[in-house]
């Protein structure tokens, strides 16, 4: 299909979104990421039954923690789509990129620059 999506998106492949931990998300921000989103299978279609539900819970947890520490929790999102939905994947990447551009850079990254 050769669909286009923003080059700022770095894909990290995991066997299932259930593998994603809160800590992975937080570390990404510590290392300067401006946003993180998880893309899982459709709810109810998880090969491991509840992996994508676990991911959603963890994304929500990460949002809460980020809100508490002054980094907008909106920078973390969870999406669900099926493997045949390539165009939707590109759309999501676009949507997320726009969301993050509106929010601006990760304040932690800026604070680190200042500290250094």
């Amino acid at each position, binding site marked *: 299909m050769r669909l286009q999506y923003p080059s700022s998106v770095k894909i990290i492949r995991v066997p299932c979104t259930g593998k994603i*931990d*809160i*800590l992975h998300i*937080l*570390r990404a*921000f*510590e290392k300067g990421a401006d946003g993180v989103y998880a893309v899982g299978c459709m709810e109810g279609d998880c090969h491991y039954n509840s992996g994508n539900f676990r991911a959603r819970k963890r994304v929500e947890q990460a949002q809460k*923690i980020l809100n*508490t*520490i*002054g*980094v907008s929790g909106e920078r973390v999102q969870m999406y669900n789509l099926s493997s045949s939905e390539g165009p939707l994947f590109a759309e999501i990447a676009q949507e997320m990129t726009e969301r993050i551009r509106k929010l601006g850079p990760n*304040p*932690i990254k800026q*604070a*680190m620059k*200042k*500290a250094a």
Partner: protein
Amino acid sequence: MIVADKKPIEEIVEEVKDCDNILILGCNECVTVCEAGGKKEVGILASALRMYFLNQGKDMKIDERTLERQCDQEYLDEIRDIADQYDAIVSLACGVGVQFTAEQYHSIPIYPGVNTCFLGATEERGLWTERCQACGQCVLARTGGICPVSRCAKRLLNGPCGGSSNGMCEISKELACGWQLIVNRLEALDKMDDYEKIFPIKDWSTDRAGGPRKVVREDVQI
């Protein structure tokens, strides 16, 4: 196990905000199982605090460590060489671990990172419920294996009270009446005759009421 729950990050921030160098100290036992103070929670708290203080323009050094147990000296000794370098330690162990760490490292402030809740079990992931209040004189043999002290809101030894309704406690429609559970068990065990035996006035001197308690076992002391 001892069940604990995470303290709000804001509360921990308030305690350590004037430090430059802290250690987040987890425990591999109960608090790991109830997902409040194990290695993973240490990592999450440390990461969150690092980002928080960076965002505040403060470069705080936050180290992470998780011990096998914080209620045994031999494990607490593992941080003997490094403890001095910290302005404070945030312990994610239960109240026992926090205090034992404080006793071992007398001159370093120790702050609790969790609220210690009760002695309980994992009913399902994310749901822990109380089973024991450590009264020091177990009555379970007489109550069908269900504890009236921990599972009745009034710890009635001769329950249920008049507030038991459809198997639920008067204080909440989501809380099982402990005495309903006891009666169910006594019926299943064909021991309803036991129900009519009046439970005598309890000796609470082995409970909290008797002051700080200790168990001395000379047979295992060296």
